[in-house]
């Protein structure tokens, strides 16, 4: 049963015919167990923070245990309300939605230019984008924040949205996808006198749904987790109705400077990992496939 399936194995070192020897059977079982252990290690911190969030501070600091004594949801609700997490969630949602739109529209357009239209001299732009793939944006965070300040864009979501429109990694994902669209389609459209825009809307867009999905999902999880620029830009920013503009991550970051009890930090961390976890569960296939394919070519 367990070993039967090895007969149809298409890739990897252990071949279907190897599995007949008992030694290989043992190896196969050991590999299986190691893989299960790896997945446990990968999931454990998330499971633990869920369990630990049910402890109160006394239990957390005194009891030598992983499991909480009781699962009381009211404790969770208490922290949620005490920190006004609804507001932070709302702000994060605004941040994420704008970032997603910018990521798809702007990077998609640039990739359309670089991968399909290829106007004269596009190689220069391509080279610059390739280099920016390797220089982490965090390096120039100080002058960037200074520029944002000088333009009067601090304390608003605008720079936080548009920064996602300039992401070399997303451009490369789009470009690789566009280049795999058969040339005949675009050439035929060109001969029919199809303009640059019409070609984009009626040929590229309908074919690009999978890659749009992948970039959108990546942008959503990245924007949700993003915090250094949001922290610098949104610090003490207020909506007109005097509620804070800070996002969930900015709140989490602020625990660094304000002494907070361990259990509250853990509950806040738990609240912060819920949305990406749900997205991951729904789109796991798109995410893992995108992650594997996007970087195969480097």
């Amino acid at each position: 049963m367990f070993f039967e399936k090895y007969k149809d194995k298409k890739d990897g070192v252990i071949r279907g015919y190897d599995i007949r020897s008992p030694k290989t059977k043992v190896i196969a079982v050991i590999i299986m167990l190691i893989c299960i252990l790896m997945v446990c290690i990968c999931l454990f911190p998330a499971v633990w923070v869920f369990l630990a969030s049910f402890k109160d501070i006394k239990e957390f600091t005194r009891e030598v245990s992983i499991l909480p004594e009781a699962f009381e949801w009211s404790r969770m609700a208490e922290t949620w309300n005490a920190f006004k997490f609804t507001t932070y969630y709302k702000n994060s949602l605004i941040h994420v939605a704008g970032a997603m739109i910018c990521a798809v529209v702007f990077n998609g357009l640039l990739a359309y230019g670089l991968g399909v239209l290829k106007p004269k001299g596009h190689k220069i732009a391509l080279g610059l984008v390739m280099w920016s793939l390797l220089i982490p944006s965090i390096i120039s965070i100080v002058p960037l924040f200074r520029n944002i300040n000088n333009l009067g864009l601090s304390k608003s979501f605008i720079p936080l949205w548009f920064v996602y429109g300039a992401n070399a990694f997303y451009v490369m994902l789009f470009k690789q996808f566009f280049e795999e669209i058969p040339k005949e389609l675009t050439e035929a459209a060109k001969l029919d006198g199809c303009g640059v825009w019409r070609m984009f809307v009626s040929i590229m867009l309908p074919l690009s749904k999978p890659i749009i999905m992948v970039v959108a999902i990546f942008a959503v999880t990245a924007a949700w987790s993003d915090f250094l620029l949001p922290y610098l830009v949104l610090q003490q920013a207020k909506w007109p109705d005097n509620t804070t503009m800070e996002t969930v991550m900015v709140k989490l970051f602020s625990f660094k400077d304000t002494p907070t009890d361990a259990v509250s930090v853990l509950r806040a961390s738990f609240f912060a990992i819920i949305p990406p976890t749900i997205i991951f569960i729904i789109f796991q296939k798109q995410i893992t496939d995108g992650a594997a394919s996007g970087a195969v070519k480097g």
Partner: protein
Amino acid sequence: MKAAKVKKEKFRKRDLMGWLVMLPTLILFAFFVWEPLIENIRLSFCTTKMYEVTGFAGLKNYIAVVNDVDFMAAFKNTFAYTFWSLIIGFLVPIIMGILISETVRGKSLFRVGVYFPNIMPSLATIWIWSYFFLPGETGVLNIILGWFGIEPQVWLNNPKWTIPLIIITLTWKSAGSTALIYMANISGISPDLYEAATIDGASIMQRIRHITIPSITGIAKTMLIMQIISVFQILYEPMIFKNGGPNNASISLMMLMYRYGYRDYNVAKASALSVIVSLILIVLSGIYMKATAKRNDE
């Protein structure tokens, strides 16, 4: 003759359209990525007060950075970070990729499971890990060690352990996505190679050594350089775990830049440091580009 001219003009119009499509995104890249990098260089040669430029400083900022005891600590730590990240961060994904490729049952579950840490917001995971590493018998790792009868450890408080432990948390987060890339490459290896090797009497270990490993060397080189580049981005882990301590044992170059910029409000000094880091990264990126270009030619 006339027809050729018309064609040429049309061609120009297409070029113009192509650049127009790319322009909005290129402006975003210029504002968020390229201009700040250049601005960094300019600011590093100036004297500043808060965000205002007050005069020309020559090389004074660079001299101040290099003579800073914190810089020497951070510079030395970078080597330690690189060393551990090559031992742990580079090898673990390769082993994971090879092992998961050998499973037949539950393969997609393993893929998804090991990728999961990647979508968790890094800030939340850093908080969670900081409680894992609590010294004393209520720390999570000490509870687990206790099951095996091992004494509680001090974890991050031991300066010799701080950097390796930080690398472990980083590897926990990123290894899954790198493993997926290796898996994509491993599944592309032709089964004929393994079959021919088996006929020649190669054992499973020999097949891994002489077929699997050579086939992934190309991508492994790329990943190696990516791994080294990522070391220069380490910021939040040392900052939140121990604020660079104990006693500067884990301070990183990026963390020092953050301190210059947002604790001391010395923009010029922060810029000088980031120019130094940028230069190192540009050299590393150059090596990376060469490695990838070679791989694509093959």
